[in-house]
């Protein structure tokens, strides 16, 4: 309860700050029609920079606030967690099965969707109702830079989008650090689901000097056998979770998981969901957190990376 009260208090102050910031930014908006192309390969024409934006993915909401368009957000998903100011915006549903009615009730002049089979249908429905949509897909770091710039143009926050884009670009331009340790992200325990390459988390770990032992799996996540995890023998098990605290997940006490060396040794990296749960412009902060967590105990390098 205490944590929640703290959150909403901060949220109010941040909202006020951001409101001021956006007011100033609104003046630099370029008038006139915009032609944009989105990640579904569509050409979208807007009469001008969008002023009432509904975001249907937590990562899009976060990016909008990051580029300074937070004041233009009039709808978000129920899953949004960050920034706290976003929680002041009315929620319009869960994002993946969008409620078109709830979205239209917010009178948006632009709806932003994360690309998936579900959202393609909703985008078409919204277009038929005369609401412009942009479908974006940002899974990796390079995608975040691209999406930030696109959102910047769509909302008239070109310079904000460029700033975020450039910070990600400079992060990407840095050489990869040497691999010092190896980890596996465990998303679910039964059946075991791990994170593969082509994900934000895979990139973050690598940039913190930790190689994902499931980097050979090209999809963002996959079900694997427990014995595969045992055989690949990661030094760490990374877990993204909502709750704070440093108790290892309950499943780590199940006997079959004791076959994994990192589980037996209690080598868990507990990553907070509000920083690691979605691709975000705070990648540098996430990498810093990662490095700090890795430094808590001495690293072992029992195996060479594949």
């Amino acid at each position, binding site marked *: 309860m205490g944590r929640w009260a703290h959150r909403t208090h901060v949220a109010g102050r941040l909202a006020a700050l951001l409101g001021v910031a956006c007011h100033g930014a609104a003046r630099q908006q370029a008038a006139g029609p915009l032609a944009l192309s989105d990640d579904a390969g569509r050409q979208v024409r807007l009469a001008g920079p969008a002023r009432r934006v509904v975001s249907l993915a937590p990562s899009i909401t976060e990016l909008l606030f990051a580029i300074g368009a937070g004041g233009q957000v009039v709808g978000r998903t*129920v*899953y949004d967690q960050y920034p706290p100011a976003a929680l002041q915006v009315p929620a319009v549903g*869960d994002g993946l099965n969008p409620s078109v009615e709830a979205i239209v009730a917010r009178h948006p002049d632009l709806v932003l969707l994360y690309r998936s089979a579900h959202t393609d249908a909703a985008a078409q429905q919204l277009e038929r109702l005369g609401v412009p949509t942009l479908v974006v897909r940002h899974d990796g770091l390079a995608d975040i830079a691209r999406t930030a710039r696109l959102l910047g143009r769509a909302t008239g926050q070109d310079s904000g989008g460029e700033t975020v884009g450039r910070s990600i670009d400079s992060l990407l331009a840095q050489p990869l650090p040497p691999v010092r340790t190896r980890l596996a992200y465990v*998303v*679910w325990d*039964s*059946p*075991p*689901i791990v994170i593969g390459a082509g994900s934000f988390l895979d990139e973050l770990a690598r940039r913190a000097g930790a190689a994902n032992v*499931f980097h*050979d*799996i090209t999809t963002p996540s*996959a*079900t*694997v*056998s*427990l*014995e*595969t995890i*045992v*055989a690949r023998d990661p030094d760490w098990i990374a877990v993204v979770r*909502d709750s704070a605290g440093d108790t290892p997940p*309950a*499943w*780590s*006490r*199940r*006997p*079959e998981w*004791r*076959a994994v060396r990192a589980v037996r040794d209690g080598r868990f990296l507990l990553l907070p*969901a509000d920083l690691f*749960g979605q691709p975000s412009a705070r990648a540098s902060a996430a990498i810093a957190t990662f490095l700090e967590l890795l430094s808590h105990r001495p690293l072992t390098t029992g195996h060479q990376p594949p």
Partner: protein
Amino acid sequence: MKWLWLCTALLAALAAAIVLGPASVPLSDLVHSPIVRELRVPRALLGLLVGGSLGLAGASLQSLVRNPLADPFLLGLSGGAGLGAVLAIALHLGGPWAIPLAAFAGALIALGLVFRLGLVGGAELDPRILLLGGVAVGAFCGAVMTAIVSLAEASELRNAYLWLWGGLSGASWDTLRVIALCLPIPVLVLLAAARPLDLLALGEEPARHLGADVRAVKRRVYLAASFLTAVSVAVAGVIGFVGLIVPHLGRALVGGRHLRLLPASFLAGGTLLVLADTLARTVVAPRELPVGIVTALVGVPLFAVLLRRWTAY
């Protein structure tokens, strides 16, 4: 001869499950490898016991409700187990055994509800009422479960469905000990009911005239088969198709007499599940397929061959 064949198939499936896997373990290390000792052996044995239980429960229930389409999960247990598991996740029940225990409790509650419905108005487990009651209870639990999953915000719940699809990834020596304690009584009850089940196949009236205590037999068989299913679902989720198809395989192999059909269904169910799980673990390694998909992929062609033979009779 048929029994020799069944046992050989089972031993071959067990051997394959222990030798094959996504991690390469040299044959010389087979005895010492912790992967084999702690993961593959318990998993293969769990597959044998769960598959056997589902086959046995399916054969008994098909005879009880005299319907070849009956499946152990048709009687509402999967819905109850799923609801229990989802509630455990949503309420953040701690502990490594919270989900299996909650699923078991949910399955038992569904079992009790359907049993009670089956006795309403002196129906005495009328097959039609049992089936309808099972479908209704299952659908109701499914609806509540879906409502919880779509309304709650815990991201873990989105994975709850994965658990429901079933699998043997929770296998350990502890799981095996628990299931080995739970199985003997219901298995013995069902085997002891083999003769009355033969009579019941003739119809309830003739069975009564031939001296079977129809009321008691039906209750015992229903409770024992459902209990077996509830134990299976608690340790391995809802593994479809084994309970539906294996009894028919058994009938084709050893005939309809229950003293032979029931053990054959146990052996065939165990073999099918161990085989399917080995394929699920190895075919797309390092990834893994849900075992329920493989049981259907392996089972349906067998089933199709059977159907052809039946129509030829």
